[in-house]
Structures are given as structure tokens and as C-alpha cells.
């Protein structure tokens, strides 16, 4: 109700959706140029930022202003002229706010790509029109599929260097379709662009009248993201129990957390796992206002009709739709650490709001991420390797398959000696 005073023009800013996307490409695919173009054309580069990179480019003797300097924030990155770490960039149009996870394309940085992809709704994969589909393209596509990114947009870049040829575009498109058919990518788009010249990035190209599809920006603004979250399987991993020590709320016992799936309504019959006690939802709160229903990715506080012992790591679900409960898990894992994975080794794991420990039982195979072939004779898992493994945990986990739910289906492995996050795993 506080909003009633907000005037119309301002309120349109309050009505936008949020789209997270990641960009991947090989070295020199023009990724930084594309991001620079998106930021520049949406007026998200500021004058002082531009002047600063202009000055640096000049000092280094670059002929043009190097837009990569915008995202390469660390001293080491600027000195070596490479991107080391995932960089996050932000821009907005009247329709949507965008978060870009800009991930480096070098071979040794698969882990950064996995990191950037893990929270994305959409992945932009750049393909150099002159080179067509190369190993890295396959790798990026595979990782996007593995991480369950709902939408993939292939940008066939540098169309200006192949005379805006429709045949070149169609050939690459066909190759990509053939490759993608082997993967689980739900929604694929192809856009011929020139990031440098601005063709089909924000404005429709005059040089490619044969292309009837949307510009990249149109896709980013309009792609349907409402179904990206699971709204079917009700899951509330309990994150924190609120027990106010005040007279007014003496009996208040609230279970806080971020809805990981489904739609919870006041009055719903629920079951608390692992205990198995059932109860009814008494109320759902966001701060001091009560809401009728809650869905992913809302952060809420829930109260139940009955007094049950519930703590962090428990999960509130619906009786007729429960997650898997098991100590033995099949995982696809991406190894993130310089020290190889120890077969038979013990690691700490974090899964939803749960902590546990696990032992690596078996490495089934490694994946050659360029060809998608299985490697069954080499079972040493090094950094940037992706492999199918099985683990046994110290206590049962409450989980769904990753393909069903990205939140309840993902976990991380931690080296207990160094506390580093060493593995990212998706439950198969």
C-alpha cells in the first residue's frame, strides 16, 4: 500500500523481471565486444568508466578502445590481457534487468564456466562465423546442457567477415543442431550477428535481409522465463528457525527458507522430512505481512498448526509428492580444484541447507567434453574434468534429480583440510 504514491513512470521500473545469463566463447570470439555492445547500446556504460578504459587502452597502445577492460577487473587480468575469474555485469532495459556472468573461454577455466552457468536462465554461446563449430563450442554447449540452463542462444558472430552469407549461417546452424540433438537442451535459438558492427545485437541488421528471426536483445527481453523454476514439487528446505524471545510473539515458531520448488498455500497438508510428521500450514510470512501462497524462489517464514521439532536441514514437502531419500547417490561431477579427486576419499558436502560427509565410492567414467565420448580407462579426476561418480553419505539426503530441480538436485564437495570448494555435483 506504500506503493500507491509512486507515480506511473517510476512504477514501470518496479515491474521488471530478472534474467540471469552467462556468456561463453573461445578466445577472440568477440565476447567482450558483444558484452560491451549490449552495455553500450543499452546505455549502461558510464562516461567515467569509458574514459578510464579509453585512457588505459591508449597507454597500452591499442588502436581501439578495449571494452574487455570493463569486465577485467583485476590487476593481473589487465596486465595479462586475459579474464581469470567470472565477472558479473549488470544492465537493464525497460522490460528486464539483466545479470551477466561473463566467463573466460580458456581451456583451463571450465570451472568458471560451470560456476557462471549454475545460476543462469540463459546461455549465450558465441561461434566465429569464419571457423564454425570448434571444440570449445561443443564444450560450452555441453556445459550449458549439463548445468540445466533452460535456454541456449547461439550467436554466430563476425558475420561481416563472411559477407553476411546465409549459407555460412545455415551450415553452422545445421552443425549445431546435429550436435545439440545429443544433449538435453530444451530451448535453442540461432542469431547471426556482428558484435563489432552491431548487426542483430540490439538493432535489426540491414545487411542480412534473409534473416527473419529476432535480434539478440529481443530474445533476451522476451524469452519466457516464468517456467524456469519448478512450480510442481513443493520443497522448503528449512534454513533457519525463528523463535522471537518477546512477549508479543511468545509462541511464534517460524521456519524460514527459500522455496526450492512448488507452490505452498495456507492450509496445505504438509509433511516434515526426515521425521515424517505431518501438519498443516498455519501461515506464510514475508516480514510482517501474511501471504496466501509462496513459490520458488521466494524467501519466506512459515508456521505450522502443530508443534513439531524442526531444525535447519529438514525439508517441508507435500505428502503425495516427496523427494528421494538416500545415502547412495549417482552424480555428474565437475572437479574444480588443482588437487585431483581422491577415489575412496572423504569430503564434506553441502546440499540445500544440509551438511554431511561423504566417501567417493566409484568413478564410473569421465566425459570427453569435446566429443561427449565416455572415457572408461582413465579414472583420475583432475581439475576441469567432468565425471560420473557414486558416493555414499553419512546420513540420508533429501533430493530430486538435477534435471527435475536445480536447487534440490545440486551439491558441492569441500576438502575438509583446506575448506576449499573442490567439486560441483549434479544428482543423476
Amino acid at each position, binding site marked *: 500500500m506504500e506503493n500507491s504514491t509512486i507515480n506511473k513512470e517510476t512504477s514501470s521500473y518496479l515491474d521488471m523481471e530478472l534474467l540471469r545469463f552467462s556468456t561463453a566463447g573461445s578466445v577472440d570470439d568477440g565476447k567482450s565486444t558483444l558484452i560491451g555492445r549490449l552495455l553500450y547500446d543499452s546505455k549502461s556504460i*558510464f562516461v567515467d568508466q569509458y574514459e578510464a578504459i579509453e585512457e588505459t587502452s591508449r597507454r597500452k597502445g591499442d588502436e581501439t578502445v578495449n571494452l574487455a577492460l570493463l569486465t577485467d577487473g583485476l590487476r593481473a587480468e589487465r596486465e595479462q590481457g586475459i579474464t581469470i575469474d567470472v565477472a*558479473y555485469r549488470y544492465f537493464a532495459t525497460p522490460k528486464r534487468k539483466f545479470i551477466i556472468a561473463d566467463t573466460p573461454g580458456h581451456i583451463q577455466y571450465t570451472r568458471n564456466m560451470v560456476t557462471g552457468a549454475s*545460476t543462469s536462465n540463459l546461455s549465450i554461446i558465441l561461434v566465429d562465423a569464419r571457423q564454425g563449430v570448434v571444440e570449445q563450442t561443443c564444450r560450452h554447449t555441453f556445459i550449458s546442457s549439463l548445468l540445466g540452463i533452460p535456454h541456449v542462444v547461439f550467436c554466430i558472430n563476425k558475420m561481416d567477415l563472411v559477407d553476411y552469407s546465409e549459407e555460412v549461417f545455415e551450415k553452422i546452424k545445421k552443425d549445431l543442431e546435429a550436435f545439440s540433438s545429443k544433449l538435453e537442451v530444451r530451448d535453442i535459438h540461432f542469431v547471426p550477428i556482428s558484435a563489432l558492427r552491431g548487426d542483430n545485437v540490439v538493432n535489426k541488421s540491414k545487411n542480412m535481409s534473409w534473416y527473419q528471426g529476432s535480434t539478440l536483445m529481443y530474445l533476451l527481453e522476451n524469452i519466457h522465463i516464468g517456467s524456469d523454476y519448478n512450480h510442481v514439487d513443493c520443497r522448503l528446505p528449512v534454513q533457519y528457525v525463528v523463535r522471537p524471545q518477546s512477549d508479543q510473539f511468545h509462541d511464534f515458531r517460524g521456519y524460514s527458507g527459500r522455496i526450492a520448488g512448488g507452490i505452498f498455500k495456507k492450509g496445505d497438508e504438509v509433511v516434515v522430512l526426515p521425521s515424517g510428521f505431518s501438519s498443516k500450514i498455519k501461515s506464510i510470512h514475508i516480514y510482517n505481512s501474511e501471504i496466501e501462497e509462496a513459490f520458488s524462489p521466494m524467501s519466506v517464514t512459515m508456521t505450522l498448526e502443530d508443534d513439531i521439532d524442526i531444525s535447519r536441514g529438514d525439508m517441508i514437502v507435500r505428502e503425495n509428492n516427496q523427494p528421494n531419500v538416500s545415502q547412495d547417490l549417482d552424480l555428474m561431477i565437475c572437479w574444480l580444484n588443482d588437487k585431483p579427486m581422491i577415489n575412496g576419499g572423504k569430503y564434506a558436502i553441502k546440499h540445500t541447507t544440509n551438511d554431511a560427509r561423504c566417501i567417493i565410492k566409484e568413478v564410473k567414467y569421465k566425459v570427453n567434453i569435446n566429443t561427449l565420448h565416455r572415457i572408461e580407462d582413465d579414472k583420475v579426476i583432475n581439475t576441469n574434468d567432468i565425471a560420473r561418480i557414486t558416493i555414499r553419505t553419512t546420513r540420508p539426503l533429501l533430493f530430486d534429480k538435477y534435471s527435475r530441480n536445480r536447487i534440490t538436485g545440486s551439491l558441492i564437495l569441500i576438502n575438509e583440510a583446506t575448506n576449499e570448494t573442490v567439486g560441483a555435483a549434479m544428482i543423476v
Partner: protein
Amino acid sequence: MVGYLVKKDQNEESRELNSRFEKFIESVILYALFFISIFLIATFVFFEKYILMKSYNLTHLEELEAEAIYILREVASQFEKPALLFSGGKDSIVVAHMARKAFWPAKIPFPLVHIDTGHNFPETIEFRDEFVQKIGANLIVGSVQQSINEGKVVEEKGFNASRNALQTVTLLETIEQHKFDCAIGGARRDEEKARAKERFFSHRDEFGQWDPKNQRPELWNIFNGRKDMGEHFRVFPISNWTEMDVWQYILKENIEIPSIYLAHQREVFIREGVIMSTSTFIQQRENEVTTNMQVRFRTIGDATCTGAVESNADSIEKIIEEVAAARTTERGTRSDDKRSEAAMEDRKKQGYF
């Protein structure tokens, strides 16, 4: 015959009447259909949001808030003694506001910590004290002046002297003294290029140092806050927010902010193109003439290193319009960032906010 004729005429007349009547009815129905359909289309257009958008979607502000609240609860769960760094600036106000929301109806389960350089704008300190009292939080102040008095740091000299860098020492000392294992901050990735590389959960070694090249990968919404004794974390719940998001949120949630964010008359002088507020902490050169201007602050740091912008924006709505049209970043008025290209990275490595 006559009768017949008359009869025929009557017949004809009635038929004519009939057909006219039919036509009339027909057109009435047509018109009715037309208006009904127009009405339906209009209602649909008007209520489209409610008919179609019953789809379960959050707005960008709701989603950013849900993310930040999730992180604040994660801090309260994963750490034993967290603290919220509170400067009295808009970003930390927004974080504190969400902390209230996250733990309602309980109070914020950690204290607010202010690293006071002694060079703050008086309006900021006044606001801080009122705010803390209103929400019933516990405030801990780490004083840079005290660090100077104790000889732990040495004050910079000259016209551009600033206590900005000295804060790091006081901050780390305060963290150590109170045994905080996590300090929540309001830094955002869009503020500055080194901050763009920052994690939500950012590890600090026993010297409080940040190692940007050796950060833990952060995947999905799983945050690894494991650490050894003596180490701590910095956590940034509004990492993904922009200046615009912050202002929109302040408007949406009707959050109170210090008055100096809004346009007001102020005694100022110009130094190297930056509008500086006159202050007892700043030495003015002879040619730096004091004038009166209508200004506001886009960001609030120390009075010694924060410049103002000329502005007539005296309401949050007007600030949002101004931010939408702005062509420079908010930290463009911060001289502490301008000392070198990697000024922020260098300070952050040593343990700065």
C-alpha cells in the same frame, strides 16, 4: 376486392414492419455483440496482468530481495558471531532493512558495527544513532581516531589527506577484538571493477587479506562458509544490486535515508572538478572559494573524499529519474577510488570493505 386490397396492404405493411423489426433486432444484436467484445477486450487488456500473469513470477526487486534475505539467514546459520557493517549509507541501510525482514518477528540476531573515521558528515552520524535506536539493534563503533591516538596508524597530511585507507586497520582490529567470524557488508559488484569479482561469501585469511586469484568457486545458492580459527568472512548480500535497484527498493519499501542524499543548499567549494562540502576536516586552498549550491550526495563516504553532485532531486522519485539519466558512475565522485587504476583492489586485498 377493396377488402382484399386492404388486407393485402395490411399484410404487406406488417411484413414490412416485420422485416424492419428483424433488421432492427439484428443491428441491436450486432451492436450488442460489438460492444460486448470491445468490453471484453478492454477488461482483458486492463486485467491482463491478473488473468495471464497469475503465472508465478517475481519482479526483479522481489527476486533480489529473496536472494539477499536467503544470504542473511545463511550467515546467521553458518557463523557463530557475525556482525553487520553499518556506515549509515544507503546500501548498508538497505541491508539492515532486509535483515529486519529476514528474522522478523525476532530482532536482528547480530550487532551493527560502524567504523567511524571521525570525518563523517554530521547528518550521517545523526541518522545512524536514530536508526539503531528505532530498530533496537546493538551498535558497536570502531574509532579510527582511537587507532590514531594509540599510534597504530598515522594520519595522512596535506590537502587531499584522507582517513579512508586507515579504516582498514580499525576495521580488522574491531573484528579481532570482538571475535567476529563474519562481517556483512553492503558492497555491490556494479560499484567498482574489483568488486565485480567478489563472491557473496568472501574468505579472509588470518590477516584479513583477500586473495582475488584464489577465490572459492560459488555455485547455485550453496555458500561455503567453512574456515579455520582466526579467519573470517565478508558477506555481501546485495552483490547483484545496482544503484538503480537500491533506489527503487528504497522507494518501494519506503525506507528512511539520511537527508544529504536529497537535494539541499550547502556550502561547497570546487576541487579538481569535484564539488566538495566545506568541513572542518578539509584544508581549503586559497583559490578554492566557498559558494552556496543546490547539491546532493550519490554516495556517502568521508566528508574528505566524497564529492557532491548538483541536483534538484528532493524526493526518491526524482533521484530515480536522475539515476536513470546519469552518465557517470556513483563512485565517480569518490576521490579514494581515483588514486590508481587498482586502488580498490589494493585496498580490498589488505582487508578493506
